[in-house]
C-alpha cells in the first residue's frame, strides 16, 4: 500500500519542500518577509522547546511560503543561532557558510562565529510537518492553495489529513473548497475504515468526472472490499462512460491532425502525379530534406544569431522550399525528362534517387535522430473540456490549411496553374495549344518537391528528424493520392482528412497496427469501385 510509504516523514518532507520551493519561485519578495523574520528573531540562543513550538505556530499562521526554508532547516537540524547577537541562520550543506533563513542567500562565514544549533524533538518534527502543509494549504495566493489541494488529491498523502481539515474549515473560495473536499475524499477512501464514509467519498471523487478522478478511482480497485468495492466499480463505469464522448472527440482531433500532416506530405505528390503521370518515389526524401534544412537553419541561427531562434522555423520555410524545389528540378531535368513516356521506369529511377538521397544524408549527418526544437509558441497545450489540444498540432493544421489555400489559388487563378491543369487533363492537346509541356513538367516537379520540403519543416516539429523520415510518410502519401484521385486538389484534401480520421477512429478498437492494415485493405477494396480515386479526371482518354 503506497500510503504506508508516504507516511514516512522523509518522503513527505521532501515532497512538501519541493512544492514549497516551487511556489517560492513564483511568489515575489514581499514585505511579509518581515513577519517571518519577526517570528525567527524570537529564537534566542537557548530557546526551549515551548518557544520553538510557538515560533513554528507563528510561522504557520503567517501563511508565508518563505517560512518553509527555515522550517525545513529546523527539521534537518541546520537552523543555527549565533551566540553573540542572536541572529538566526541556516547552516549550509558543507557546514562552512551561513545562509539567510528567509531567502537562502549567503550571509556569512560559519567558521568564525560561535553557533548554537536549535534542537528539536519528535513532537516538534510533527508540528513542523503540519506547519508545512498548512503553509501551502492556507497560503494567501489562491493558485497556491489550489495546487496544494490538487497535489494531495493525486498523491493521496494521508498524513495531510489534519492540515486539510483545518484548511477546509477556514476556506472561503468555493473552487478551492471543492478541490479540498475532493482531496479529503481521496484521503478518506485511502485511510478510513468506515464503509459508509468511504462510499460517500467515492461519490465525491466520481462527481469530479475527469481523467484524474478516473485514474484515482482505478488505483483503489484492488484495495477495497464489500460495499465500498461495488460502489467503486459503479463509479468507475459511470466515469468511463462520461469520458467516452470526450475520447471520441480526442480521436477525431488526432485524426484531423494526422490528416493535415498527410495533406501536407501528399499534395506535392498528387500535383506531380496529376500533371506528369509519374509517381515520385523520392517524394519522402524531399520531406526529409526539408526537415534537415530546418535542422541546419536552426543550428546556424543558434550559433550566429541566438536571438532569432524563435523565428528559425519561419526562416527555414522559404529556404526549405527553395532547396527542395531546386533538387526536384535537377532530378526532373537530369533523369525524368529522359524517361518521358515510361512511367514505370520513372518510378524505378526515382526509387534509386531516394536511396541515394537517404544514404547521402546518412553519410553527412549520421544515421541518428537530429534535434529540432519547438519554438515557444508551439509548445504547450490548451484544454477544452477534456480535450488536450497541443499547440504544435494546432499550428500544423493551420499551416497545412494555409498551404492548401495558397495552392488552390495558384492552381485556379494563375497562368501557370492554368497550364498545369491543362497538361493534367490532356497533355497532347495542351501541347498543341502552345503550352510548353517540358517547362510545365519541370515547374510542376519543382513545385511538388518544394511543397514536400515545407511539409518537412512542419514535420520536423512533431516527428524525429532522421534519414528514414521519408520512408514513414511515403506509403501514406501514396494511399492518399490513390484514394483521393488526381483530378482535383480537393481530392487530396478529402482523401487525406478521411484517411487520417478513419485511421485514428479505428485505433482504439483495433490498435494502431491493425487499424493501419484495415485502412490499407479498405483502400484496396475501394479501388475496385473507383480505380482512379475519389476525384478522378473526367474525360474520354483511353489508356493503351
Amino acid at each position, binding site marked *: 500500500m503506497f500510503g504506508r510509504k508516504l507516511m514516512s516523514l522523509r518522503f513527505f518532507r521532501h515532497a512538501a519542500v519541493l512544492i514549497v520551493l516551487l511556489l517560492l519561485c513564483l511568489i515575489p519578495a514581499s514585505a511579509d518577509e518581515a513577519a517571518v523574520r519577526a517570528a525567527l528573531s524570537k529564537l534566542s540562543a537557548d530557546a526551549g522547546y515551548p518557544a520553538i513550538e510557538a515560533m513554528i505556530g507563528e510561522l504557520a499562521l503567517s501563511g508565508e511560503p518563505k517560512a518553509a526554508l527555515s522550517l525545513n532547516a529546523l527539521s534537518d537540524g541546520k537552523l543555527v543561532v549565533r551566540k553573540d547577537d542572536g541572529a538566526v541562520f541556516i547552516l549550509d550543506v558543507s557546514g562552512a557558510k551561513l545562509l539567510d533563513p528567509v531567502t537562502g542567500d549567503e550571509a556569512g562565514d560559519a567558521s568564525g562565529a560561535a553557533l548554537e544549533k536549535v534542537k528539536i524533538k519528535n513532537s516538534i518534527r510533527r508540528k513542523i510537518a503540519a506547519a508545512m502543509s498548512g503553509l501551502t494549504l492556507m497560503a494567501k495566493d489562491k493558485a497556491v492553495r489550489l495546487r496544494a489541494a490538487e497535489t494531495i488529491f493525486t498523491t493521496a498523502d494521508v498524513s495531510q489529513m489534519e492540515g486539510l481539515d483545518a484548511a477546509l474549515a477556514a476556506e472561503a473560495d468555493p473552487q478551492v473548497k471543492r478541490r479540498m473536499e475532493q482531496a479529503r475524499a481521496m484521503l478518506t477512501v485511502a485511510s478510513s475504515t468506515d464503509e459508509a464514509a468511504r462510499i460517500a467519498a467515492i461519490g465525491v471523487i466520481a462527481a469530479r468526472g475527469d481523467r484524474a478522478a478516473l485514474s484515482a478511482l482505478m488505483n483503489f480497485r484492488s484495495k477495497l472490499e464489500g460495499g465500498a468495492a461495488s460502489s467503486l466499480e459503479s463509479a468507475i463505469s459511470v466515469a468511463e462512460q462520461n469520458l467516452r464522448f470526450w475520447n471520441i472527440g480526442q480521436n477525431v482531433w488526432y485524426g484531423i491532425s494526422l490528416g493535415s500532416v498527410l495533406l501536407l506530405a501528399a499534395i506535392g505528390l498528387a500535383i506531380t502525379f496529376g500533371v506528369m503521370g509519374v509517381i515520385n518515389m523520392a517524394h519522402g526524401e524531399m520531406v526529409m530534406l526539408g526537415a534537415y534544412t530546418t535542422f541546419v537553419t536552426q543550428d546556424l541561427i543558434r550559433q550566429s544569431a541566438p536571438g532569432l531562434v524563435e523565428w528559425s522555423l519561419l526562416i527555414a520555410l522559404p529556404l526549405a522550399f527553395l532547396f527542395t524545389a531546386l533538387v526536384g528540378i535537377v532530378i526532373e531535368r537530369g*533523369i525524368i525528362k529522359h524517361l518521358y513516356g515510361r512511367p514505370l521506369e520513372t518510378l524505378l529511377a526515382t526509387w534509386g534517387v531516394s536511396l541515394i538521397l537517404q*544514404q547521402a544524408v546518412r553519410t553527412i549527418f549520421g544515421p541518428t535522430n537530429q534535434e529540432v526544437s519547438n519554438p515557444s509558441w508551439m509548445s504547450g497545450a490548451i484544454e477544452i473540456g477534456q480535450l488536450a489540444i497541443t499547440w504544435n498540432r494546432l499550428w500544423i493544421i493551420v499551416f497545412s490549411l494555409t498551404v492548401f489555400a495558397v495552392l488552390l489559388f495558384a492552381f485556379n487563378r494563375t497562368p501557370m496553374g492554368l497550364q498545369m491543369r491543362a497538361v493534367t487533363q490532356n497533355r497532347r492537346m495542351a501541347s498543341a495549344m502552345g503550352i510548353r509541356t517540358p517547362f510545365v513538367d519541370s515547374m510542376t516537379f519543382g513545385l511538388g518537391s518544394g511543397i514536400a520540403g515545407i511539409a518537412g519543416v512542419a514535420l520536423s516539429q512533431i516527428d524525429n528528424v532522421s534519414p528514414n523520415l521519408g520512408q514513414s510518410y511515403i*506509403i501514406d502519401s501514396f494511399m492518399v493520392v490513390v484514394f483521393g484521385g488526381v483530378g482535383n486538389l480537393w481530392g487530396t484534401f478529402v482523401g487525406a482528412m478521411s484517411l487520417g480520421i478513419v485511421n485514428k477512429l479505428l485505433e482504439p478498437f483495433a490498435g494502431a497496427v491493425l487499424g493501419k492494415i484495415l485502412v490499407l485493405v479498405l483502400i484496396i477494396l475501394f479501388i475496385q469501385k473507383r480505380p482512379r480515386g475519389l476525384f478522378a479526371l473526367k474525360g474520354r482518354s483511353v489508356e493503351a
Partner: protein
Amino acid sequence: MILTRFFMGGFDRRISVMIGLILAAAVLVPVLHLLVPAGNPLHVPTYIVALTGKYLTYALLALSLDLVWGYCGILSLGHGAFFALGGYAMGMYLMRQIGARGSYGNAELPDFMVFLNWKELPWFWHGFDHFAFAMLMVMLVPGLLAFIFGWFAFRSRVSGVYLSIITQALTYALLLAFFRNNFGFGGNNGLTDFKDILGFNVQAGGTRAALFSASAIALALGILVTSALVNSKYGKLMIGVRDAESRLRFLGYRPENIKLVAFTVSAVMAGIAGALYVPQVGIINPGEFDPGNSIEVVIWTAVGGRGTIIGPVIGALLVNAGKSWFTGVLPEFWLFALGGLFVFVTLFMPKGVVGLWEKYLPRRAKRAGKKKSPEPAPDLAQTAGAAE
C-alpha cells in the same frame, strides 16, 4: 502429348544453354563440396554453397517477376510478399520438425508460443508437421492470395502506376500484420532455429548440397515452364496484353483473365523460391515483406533484361554478388551503388545486360536465332499510353 509439345516449344538456344549450365552446377557444386577434400583449391566451402543456393532462389524470384512484368506488363512491387509467404510455409514446417528440441522442450508448441503463454497450437498451424501438406501450402497460399488480389484488381482495370502502388500497399499491410507478436507467426523474431528437414540436419554439408541442387533444379524447371508459357499461344496473348491491352480487348479476348493466370503462376513460382530460400538461410522474418525488398527484385530483373528469360536470372546473380561484395568491402557505399544502378539501368540500359549483349553482338544473335524468344517491350507502346 500436348504437354510434351508445350514444353518443347520452350526450348531455344539460349534457354537450353542456360538450363544446361544450371543443371551442371546442380551436379558439380555438391560434388565439389562433399567429395573434394577441404584443402583442395577446387573445394567449394559451405558458405559458398549456402550463398549461391540463396542466389539461385533469388533468380527464381526474379524470373517470376519477369513473367508478369516483362511479358504481361504488370509491374508488381509486392512480389516479395509471395516469396515471404512461401518462406513462412516452409518455416512453419521446419518449426514443427524441431519438436521437443526447442529451448522450452515443448513437443507441441514452438518456442515463441510457449514464450507467449499459448496453451495450444492455433488452427492454421495444424498439418504443417507433414512435408507434403507444407509443400502444398507453399504453392497454395501465395497462389490463392495472388488469385484473389488479381481477380479484384484486374477486373476493375486497375493498371499502371496505380496497380504498382496497390501491390506495395499489399506487401506493406502483410509486413505490419506479420510483425505483430500475437499474429501467430513468430512476430518480429520470425521463425528460426531450425533443426531438421525431412529428417536430415539442416546445417549438415550433405543437406546444404541437396538444397542447392534442389534450388538449381527448381530454377531450371522455372525457366522451362516460363519459356514454354511465353512461347505458346497463351504467351502471345500475354504480350498482346503488355503492348496493346485495349486492342486485345476489342478483339474479343479477356485481358483480366490472361493477367490473372500469369499473376497466379508467377506467385506460385515466387512461393517455391521462398520455400527453398528459408532452409538455406535458416530464418524467415517479417522483414522479407518490406516493400524495399520487392523493389530490389525489380532491379534484378531490370539489370538482367526484362522480357527475356535468362535476363532476370543473370541480373539476380550479378546484383546479389555485387551486393555481397560491396557490403563486405565498402558498406557505406552500397546504397549509393544500388540507387545509382536503378538510375543507370533505367536511363541507359532499358533492355538490361541481355539487351546490351544483343545489341553489340548482332552476328551472334542472327546466327542463333531462327527461334527467338518474344521481343521485350518496345518503348512505343508506353509512349502512346502515357501521352494521354
